[in-house]
């Protein structure tokens, strides 16, 4: 994708997007609703025409190519299974539509059914199948015509929370099995983190960062990515970098001072992950506990200092102060991320 954009009237759904997706790669387009991820996907599929820019498959410009000719597999949010047909007819639909012969169709349907463990239910009506079978069927129906790229539009959003983990694992293993290029649209950072090879974080029609899940988690390109990835997201405190006898120090106002590795002085946003907070009676930082959330294995502390708030995620074994009491902690200087206070970009 190069310089890809889409405007709806005066509204810019997608500004400028450049993204290259490798063959066999699983890329997640991640962002809140309205960020342009579905628009991007619909343009790849050919349901929408880009206002500017190009989409190329293997170097071939796809602008103006009708969606039936693109070789795009699409898994819809609700799978869009043809429920009035049998599983077999669903799987064979694409091949028959493209005029593949009967013998060849039967062979390929048989193969894909075997691979997806759908063989026992080939002659059943698709209506009334359970949701994980529908997912496999939806993937099989698209995969059997061997598309160049697979697009998945939040397929797990209609699934029970408890069942999502199973579905995620199954989807990931299917993707490995088919070695299929997949683009997965989601607003759920957990889905993106667990399944994708690379995550493309989007907001307000802009591509903010592309990277492996760990890169995006550890080195967010800006404060939006920092807040969006992780549960809870990264803490960001207003601060000033100043020089001290022992090196650079971030002045965090009411919260205290914390040594940092780099920085040129001036206003910054001081970022750290809630999971990387170490309780330390002699630590340099102190904030007041406003709420204690115990969620089993972990305890989440809601902290405040002046007008700044933060969260800390601790092991539930760790003794924590009561509500209203001060909480002193330390941070590993390597874990601290600094962002420009003006541009909110990573420093």
């Amino acid at each position, binding site marked *: 994708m190069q310089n890809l954009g889409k405007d709806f009237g005066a509204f810019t759904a997608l500004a400028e997007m450049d993204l290259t997706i490798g063959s066999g790669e699983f890329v997640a387009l991640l962002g809140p609703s309205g960020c342009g991820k579905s628009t991007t996907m619909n343009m790849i599929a050919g349901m929408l025409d880009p206002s500017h820019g190009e989409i190329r498959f293997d170097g071939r410009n796809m602008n103006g190519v009708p969606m039936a000719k693109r070789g795009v597999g*699409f898994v819809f949010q609700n799978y869009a299974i043809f429920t009035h047909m049998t599983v077999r007819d669903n799987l064979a639909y694409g091949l028959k539509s493209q005029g593949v012969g009967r013998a060849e169709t039967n062979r390929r349907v048989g193969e894909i059914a075997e691979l997806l463990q759908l063989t026992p239910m080939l002659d059943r009506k698709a209506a009334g199948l359970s949701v*994980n079978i529908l997912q496999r069927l939806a993937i099989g129906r698209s995969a059997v015509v061997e598309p160049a790229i697979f697009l998945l539009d939040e397929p797990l959003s209609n699934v029970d929370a408890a*069942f999502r983990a199973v579905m995620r694992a199954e989807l990931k293993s299917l993707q490995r099995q088919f070695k299929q290029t997949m683009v997965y649209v989601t607003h759920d950072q957990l889905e993106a983190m667990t399944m994708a090879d690379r995550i493309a974080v989007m907001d307000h029609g802009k591509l903010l960062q592309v990277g492996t899940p760990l890169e995006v988690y550890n080195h967010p390109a800006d404060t939006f990515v920092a807040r969006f990835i992780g549960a809870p997201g990264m803490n960001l405190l207003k601060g000033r970098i100043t020089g001290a006898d022992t090196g650079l120090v971030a002045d965090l106002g009411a919260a205290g001072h914390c040594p940092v590795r780099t920085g040129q002085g001036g206003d910054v946003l001081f970022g750290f992950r809630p999971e990387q907070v170490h309780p330390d009676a002699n630590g340099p930082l102190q904030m007041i506990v406003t709420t204690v959330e115990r969620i089993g294995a972990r305890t989440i502390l809601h902290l405040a200092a002046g007008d700044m708030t933060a969260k800390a995620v601790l092991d539930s074994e760790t003794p924590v102060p009561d509500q209203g009491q001060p909480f002193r902690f330390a941070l590993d200087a390597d874990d601290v991320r600094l962002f420009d206070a003006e541009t909110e970009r990573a420093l």
Partner: protein
Amino acid sequence: MTDMTTDTLPDDAGDETALHGGAEERKLGFWLTLPAQLLVLFIALFPILMQVYISLTDWSPLDGIPWYQAYELWIGLLNYVDLANDPRFWSAMWRTCIVMAICVPVQFFLGLGLAILFVDDFRGKRVLYSTILVPMMVVPAVAGYMFFMLFQSGGPVNDILSFFAGRPVTIAWLSDPDLALFATIVSDIWQWTPLMFLILLAGMVSVPQDQQMAAVLLGASWTRRFFTIVLPRMKTIIIIAIAIRVIENFKVFDNFYIMTGGGPGVATETISIYIYKVTQQELIWGYVAAIALAILITLSVVSALAIKKLRGAQQ
């Protein structure tokens, strides 16, 4: 793996009795609603029972005895024997079937074609849509009058034909026994195609968009999508639409009566017009009751078949 979701599904076979009370309470409910049920049963059944009763007699309002004393003129099944041997009844029945066999398919295919055109957006769709529905709103008697005027030998239909033929055309549409039925059928098609269109369009719009999109992405042509996705998904609504029109067509009366009065001769005499004539002109009400019952039974069988088909389609 396959039975994973069965655990997450809600248990539909919940405790019915807990909600609706035990056997005792149900018995009380039965007695409490009994009077109302009897009343409804009476309202529904009385006219039919009365009809059955009268149909077994030779009663006529001119006989000077009230209807409940019609047993004095008891003739058993003779009315039904007469009916079976009544050539005018059978020809009216046959004519009604012909009207139905022409009107329903024509209305269906016109309605379906219009629905296909209207399922996508285009400029002026709303205005055109309302216009197409107008005939359906016209009172059938008025529609009959309109077509009565149109098909006069000096009327607009002949004027248009004259224009194309290049010479004066004076076809006597309504008084030619071979053409009168055609003219009445045209009026029925004009009036009721919009209803078919409305029902079929509603069905077509309700076909899930993403299923069609999925079919497009799998490379299916428009024709293939139409026959494999759209039509099968409309099956239920198609059966309903056709059943409604079949039953309604059995009852055609207004426009036929106004355009031709069933004539010339009996050329456009449908079953309803025949019943009307026997009731109002010949006043043999025992016989009318027999005809009406015969039709009721026929229509019930048609409806039952349609419902059976419908159940099949939904499974």
